[in-house]
Every structure is written in C-alpha cells, then in structure tokens.
C-alpha cells in the first residue's frame, strides 16, 4: 500500500538546490534515506512532516495534500515526526512531555491520553523512567523518548530524521530493534548516513545526492552495485583506485581489478561508495566544478571507521585539487 507519493518535488534555498525533482512512492515497512550531508534527506523529510513547504511538485500523504490548508491537518493527524534536533523541553519529565504532545495530537480525553502515554512509554522501554526529567536522561533514552512522542496516536507514517546519530553501539542496537518492530505494520521513513543502519533494518534504501534520488532498491541491490568491482590483493594497486588494508593485511580495492586481485563479496558500503563516486565523476565532468568531490569527502570517515585507513594510490595525499580531477578517487 502506498503511504507517501512524491512527484517532481523541488526546493531551493537561495542559489542552493536542496531538492531537485524528486519522485518517490513509499509504502509499509522501513525505508532508509541514505546520503552524505547536504544530500537533501532532511529537506525531504521536513516537507513530508509539513514543517517546510516545497517550491515545486506535489506531495500526498495517504492521499492528502499538505499544501492545501484543511488537508494539512489530515496529514498531521497521520504522521509522527522525530526531527534531527527535537529540542525536548529539558525540565519536563518524560511523562509530562508525552502528555503535552498528546494534547497537541488532539487526544483530549484525560483517561485515553494517560493510557496512550503509558502505551508508548512501554513500547520504547521507558516505563520506569517516566518521572525522570529530560535533561537527566541519557542520549539513548532521550532519543527513545523522541521516538515515543512520534508514536503517540498510532500514526500510519513515522518520520525519523537521523535517529541514530550520537548513539553508542548498544543504544543503537536497541533503537534499531524498536524501529523494526514499529515498521512491521506501519510506514517508517528514516534518514541516515550510516550504511550499517540500512543493512540492519531497512527493507528498502533510497540513496540521495545533491537533492536527487540516485538509487532506489533493496540493501542487497545496493551492495550489488559494486558486484565485480571489489578486489582483495596482497599488494597495493597501481593507479588512482581507492583502497584500504583490511584486518587480514590484504588490500581491498574498489573499481578496476588490480594485479593479482581476487574478487570479493561486495558490501552495502562498497555499493554506496561506488555509487557516490560515479555520481561525483559524472557530475564533475558535466559541470567542471570541484564541490562534488567535497561531498564525497563526507563519506570517507565512515569507510575509514569500518575498514581501516583510506588512502589513494598514485596521487600525493595533500593535493586536494589533484584529487578532484582524478576520477575514482575517494578521500
């Protein structure tokens, strides 16, 4: 079933294009928006959450158009939204905060509201923290409270903007378990720049870049983008290929096969990096400007953290200008 339908959606901030004619249909389950910073993920989610009006194109949530005044209320009745910076009132207790948001969500009957607050507290496993002030909650608990307020009133569409940022691995695992449970019966749309999130809980992944959708498919298909382009070799490759040394001391290369390279199974991250990389190359060739390579820089730390140091062969490391002109280089 289609929950969200987006047609040719566009948004500009001054000279910057945040969304460039985005087309998407989203249904039940967990869909991940993946992309580097500034890809337009947040802008898209804020448009869906009715926090931002798009410039062009159309948007429907359960058939309702947020651009029409009286339909916007209908959209708001059907969504739960956790912004990137929720700004939960620090002096409210968890219970107070949920009670207050429940009033804003039109649950006016006191008894029904309290039952709903208890229900979401239980769902995010914060029942025993109801009396704790928001400022005294840990980062992970605060994020779960943010999720709980989004779940008030059982919305059909749950929008989560970068919900796993700043969580330690244990909290992140708990959060993923909660989100995947929610996604069993509802539509969950979340943005992330972590390929692990996508692999762990998304049935579908949409990769965005420069305000456009550059990939739409399953996580397996995203890994498949790198099929036949991931190599393990005992010696570092020649040329400009991106490579890093893995835990076994072998060189893992993305792109053309290096001398003595053996084909390796691609990961979601390999697919994602190659996708951004090829986009950077084509975009750079088309417009001849450097900033595209700058965007690719944003993903390098992820690769480094997961697999070791990222280095470039052939070019001198500090020469940033050289890197932008050399195709296939990820820094």
């Amino acid at each position, binding site marked *: 079933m289609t929950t969200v339908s987006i047609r040719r959606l566009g948004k500009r901030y001054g000279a910057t294009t945040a969304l460039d004619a985005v087309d998407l249909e989203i249904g039940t389950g967990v869909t991940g928006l993946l992309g580097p910073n500034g890809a337009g993920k947040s802008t898209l989610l804020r448009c869906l959450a009715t*926090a931002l009006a798009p410039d062009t194109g159309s948007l429907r949530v359960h058939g309702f158009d947020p651009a029409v005044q009286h339909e916007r209320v209908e959209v708001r009745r059907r969504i739960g939204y*956790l912004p990137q910076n929720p*700004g939960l009132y620090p002096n409210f207790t968890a219970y107070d905060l949920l009670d*207050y948001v429940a009033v804003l*969500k039109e649950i006016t009957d006191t008894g029904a509201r309290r039952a709903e607050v208890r229900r979401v507290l239980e769902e995010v496993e914060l029942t025993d923290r109801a009396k704790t002030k928001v400022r005294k909650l840990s980062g992970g608990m605060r994020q779960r409270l943010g999720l709980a307020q989004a779940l008030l009133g059982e919305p059909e569409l749950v929008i989560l903007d970068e919900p796993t940022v700043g969580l330690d691995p244990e909290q992140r695992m708990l959060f993923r378990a909660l989100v995947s449970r929610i996604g069993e019966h509802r539509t969950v749309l979340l943005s992330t720049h972590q390929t692990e999130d996508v692999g762990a809980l998304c049935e579908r992944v949409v990769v965005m870049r420069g305000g456009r959708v550059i990939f739409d498919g399953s996580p397996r298909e995203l890994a498949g983008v790198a099929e036949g382009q991931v190599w393990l070799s005992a010696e570092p490759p020649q040329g400009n290929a991106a490579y890093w040394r893995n835990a076994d001391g072998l060189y893992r290369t993305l792109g053309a096969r290096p001398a003595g390279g053996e084909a390796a199974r691609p990961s979601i991250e390999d697919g994602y990096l190659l996708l951004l990389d090829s986009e950077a190359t084509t975009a750079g060739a088309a417009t001849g400007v450097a900033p595209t390579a700058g965007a690719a820089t944003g993903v390098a730390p992820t690769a480094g953290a997961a697999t070791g140091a990222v280095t470039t062969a052939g070019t001198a490391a500090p020469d940033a200008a050289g890197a932008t002109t050399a195709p296939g280089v990820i820094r």
Partner: protein
Amino acid sequence: MTDWHLDQDLLDRYDRGDLDTGRVMAVEAHMLACPHCRFRVHVDVAWTTGNWAIVYDAVHAPRVGPAQRLLTRLGLPEHRVRLLTATPALRWSWLLATAAVLGLAVLAAVFSRDGTDRAGLLFLVVAPILPVVAVSGAYGPPADPMYEITGTAPAAGPALVLWRATAVIGAAVATAGFAALLLPAAGWYAAAWLLPALLLCTGTLALATSVPLPLAAGTLGGLWLAGVLGVTGFRHEPAVPLVFGPAAQLSYSLAAALAAIVLIRRRRRFDPGESR
C-alpha cells in the same frame, strides 16, 4: 526458604476473604518470603492491570498546580489547561524578567526628583511593550525549542497561537497591573497603558499573518518606542496628554479593533509549523 507451605484450604479461605486479620497477616508474611505460595494465589489480571495503571498515573502524571486548579474552576477543559500552562514562554524566568523591568520603572518613579511625570511616562512607554515581547515568545524557534514537533502537530495552527498569546498577555497584563498599583500618585495613567498594549498585541498578531511572529513584534514594538519618543522628545508636560490622552486612547482602541478584524479574517494563515 522454608519447607513448609500454606495448605490449600487456608489459601482458599484467604482467597474468599474468610480469614481473621491475624491469619491474613500470617499468610501474607509467608507469601512475601515464598514465591511458590505467592503464585498459588488466584490473580485477577484485569483488576491488577487496572490498578497498576491507576497507581502508575497517580505517581507519574503531571502535578496540578494552583494556576491549573484556578483555570479548571473557571471552566476550561483539562486538556486546554495543560496546553496553556505548558506554554514555554510562561516560564518563571520570563515572568521574573517582566516583573523586574516593571519594578525598575516603579523604582524610577519613586526616586525621581522632578515629580512623577517623567518616571510615569517611562512606565507608560515600557508597560505596553512587555505583553508584545511575551506574544513574540509564544511560538516559534527562539522561545520554543520543540517547535518542529509542536508546529507539526494537528492541534498546531491559529488556535494554538491565539491560546498561547492570550495566556502570556494575561500574565503580562496582570504583572504590569500590579506594578501600576505600586506607582506613587497612581492617577488615571496607571491604566493608560492598557489600550496601547492591546493595540500592540492585536497588531502584532495581525501582522504575524504575513511575517514571522518575532519580526512582527519587533517592528510594532520599535514603531511604538520611536513614535512616542519622536512625538514627546521626553518633554514633561505635553507628553502624557498627547500620547495617552483621551483622543489618543480613542484612536488606539479604533486601531486595535481594526487589527482584530484583520486578525480574524486572516487567522487561517497562521501556520507557524510551516516555514517557507
């Protein structure tokens, strides 16, 4: 742990409530120590769950303060009271700041050497601004850190803004009114600021149907200050009658009515949740 357990007959009688107090205490003392017997007692799940919910809410639900009780007694429904009293701008810090500014104005009046006119003028000029400052904080990013959540809730929109504005105006007017009573020689001008305040508030809300609320408040507040200072130049005598005299008051009330009409006609444009 003990080898001895409650016999079934005793347990049945406990269940039916047929035991005397001494026996009940003995049975319960045993059950506290013995999980085995504890789980042999018949449990009414619905009853337990219901009571658990009641206890949980009693412990965790927001406390009802004197302000809430007063509003409830005035006939406001409970959810509306929650909405009003949770208004972020209605914080002690803000109320204290308002009270401090007014207190300073009163002090200035008390200690001023050249009579009450100049200090009274200071009070009259400052007092109408405070409710407007309060209104500008009733909604949106600077005052409400949770604005993205509150602004995209179904109850967001004109009704919420107006309710919050009413709440903060009410608090500001009450504070300023109290300060006016403290003014020395509090004559007619102790109330002269009310109509300008009303005009500035309705005007701000009307203007906010086209521009962001803080901008609207800043514009009108600035215009008021510039206007008053421009007209009077802080001269004593003509100032108060000119700016706060009957003719001026009449024009304030007419303008406020006009602003109210604009506000009512354009109220649907209030959507603080959606930025452009």
